[in-house]
């Protein structure tokens, strides 16, 4: 494992805390009706998200899915415009046009989350293609779930990335369920082993609640991509704590309590806090990170609250580059 600077370690914990605090607040806001519709939280999956996003540079590209807030937060997107987007405000990162499912912050290389399972994988692949053609040294990463791992477009994309040696990372967030469906009941074989069929390395991170384990695996894939050696499939084992989406109450007990308890004992933020303490971070400093994340979320909500809703006059903006083309 590479020696990481203290600043990097601190930043990892801060970003995980940000995601946790943001999503806990968003969950409450959905239940109170402050956020219209629903959201899918990354609570429990923070190590998997932050380990991957911090292995990328700010200029690198990323696409995501419906479990959508952690990705841009992990990539360094400021919380205010993200929260305003969830609420549908004009100051939202997508001007209130996208909502939770379609967060994107191009300023940090976030090319967009997707409500259609699997659909954004080729978008990152295309970003990797442009890096290759323009020879600009950037890499691209696509986040997708174990459910999306059974979409055909993933394999079309892996094949293209392989044959063109694109600087691409396919990152499977295996939280073991697609909505109510256990992955093993719909998935033949091991996801990471599918990489072999495309002549690329397939890495399985069993300790997906350990942010450093994820960071190391993805960093190796990024190094490979930047060196021109092509794509990697990384499968990270993790667990979502909340229901598939906020407000959803599935009648069936599809996840058993023992399993949940076992995963809660491996909480990524608690684990990393213990690690940081062992590395000489003081309790005060670690509490401070927690307080910072909470304060940032408070400020993001205040920013959203103070922001106007978009005016109907802008409804057609950005349908096309020119307004005349809109009917």
């Amino acid at each position, binding site marked *: 494992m590479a020696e990481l600077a203290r600043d990097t370690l601190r930043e990892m914990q801060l970003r995980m805390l940000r995601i946790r605090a943001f999503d806990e607040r968003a969950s409450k806001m959905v239940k109170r009706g402050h956020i219209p519709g629903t959201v899918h939280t990354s609570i429990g999956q923070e190590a998997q998200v932050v380990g991957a996003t911090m292995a990328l540079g700010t200029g690198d590209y990323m696409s995501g899915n419906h479990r959508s807030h952690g990705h841009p937060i992990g990539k360094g997107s400021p919380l205010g415009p993200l929260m305003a987007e969830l609420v549908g405000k004009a100051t939202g990162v997508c001007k*209130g046009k996208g909502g939770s499912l379609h967060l994107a912050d191009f300023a940090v290389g976030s090319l967009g989350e*997707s409500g259609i399972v699997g659909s954004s994988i080729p978008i990152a692949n295309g970003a990797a293609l442009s890096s290759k053609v323009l020879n600009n040294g950037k890499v691209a990463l696509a986040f997708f779930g174990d459910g999306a791992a059974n979409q055909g477009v993933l394999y079309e994309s892996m094949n293209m990335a392989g044959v063109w040696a694109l600087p691409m990372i396919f990152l499977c967030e295996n939280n073991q369920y697609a909505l109510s469906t256990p992955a093993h009941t719909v998935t033949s074989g091991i996801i990471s082993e599918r990489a072999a069929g495309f002549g690329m390395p397939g890495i399985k991170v069993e300790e997906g609640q350990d942010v450093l384990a994820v960071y190391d695996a993805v960093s190796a894939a990024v190094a490979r991509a930047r060196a021109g050696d092509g794509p990697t499939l990384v499968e990270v084992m993790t667990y979502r704590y909340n229901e598939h989406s906020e407000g959803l109450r599935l009648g069936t007990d599809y996840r058993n309590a023992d399993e949940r308890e076992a995963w809660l004992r491996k909480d990524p933020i608690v684990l990393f806090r213990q690690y940081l303490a062992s590395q000489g971070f003081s309790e005060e400093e670690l509490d401070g990170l927690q307080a910072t994340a909470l304060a940032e979320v408070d400020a993001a909500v205040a920013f959203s609250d103070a922001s106007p809703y978009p005016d109907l006059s802008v409804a057609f903006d*950005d349908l096309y580059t020119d307004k005349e083309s809109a009917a």
Partner: protein
Amino acid sequence: MTVMSYLGAIGAAQREAMDADERVIIIGEDVEANVYGTTGGGKSRSDKGDFLQRYGKNRIRNTPISEEGIVGAAAGAAMTGLRPIVDLSYSSFLYMAMDQFVNQVAKNRYMFGGQASMPVVFRSAMFYGLNTGAHHSDRPYPMFMNVPGLKIIAPATPADAKGLLRSAVDSDDPVLSFEACLLWSTKEDVDENEFWVPLGVARTAREGTDVTVVAISSSVPEAVAAAEELAKEGVSVEVIDPRTLVPLDRNAILRSVAKTGRLIVAEPAHRTCGAAAEISALVAEEIFDSLKAPIIRVTAPDMQIPFSPSLEKQMYPTRATIAAAIRRVVDLPALQPVATAV
């Protein structure tokens, strides 16, 4: 001016676009070998593969047969600095990539509040009328007209094929180009210098005062032929070729129909929810009072394209079926019963 075929004009536009901007790349199945005839010489398919020699494998990219992956990758590449031209060969293959067209290509600029630029062109050939059977004979542009966020061109002449493609490549919005194979060998004088035909501007293919025929793609030359025939009987027919279906040049259509008072819309697509239906509705809503006769659509019927030449030929608008429609709206007696499936 040089004589160019429709296909040669597309090749010329691609070459100009590749020369003008390094960010333009061509990706698609079999583009390296110039199998579909637009990545070779300027005039014909004879200079096989010379795009590959000229621009290299980095910018001329053969793809696997993976339409969904190709369309999505082109979108991602467009969002990050390239200006891809995607050759999808047959228009029927667009269905393989429907999710990418509808959910990513069309929606990303809007959903992301204008952050995504989508300068990408998807070219495909409509192979109807060539006895290729139902899987290769589609004219699917109306389906895509129903997807806000896409721009759609359907050039009917070599000059328009060249000029519209240049505008499509320069557009920061995604453009789908539907090219009728029946027009591939059409030839005319085309400016060998660069020129651009703006998107959203119709062309008056023929001026007239009694009837307006709005014709699309391969129906344009048929409409012009019908107009010439009717001119002999003293009927003055105006033929409007919208060229761009999204955005549609509504004003040009409305102006013409306001003048003539009669409208025929001819297109090779299916009848239900086709471009003809949309144009008919536009005229009925906007200038109903100017109409002296009911609007007539001359389209393909709502059915699969049969293989047998004796059946397939009857399916699309011809000069005879368009002429028959014109005769009806000006109260001329029908010449003979035309076997028209409408």
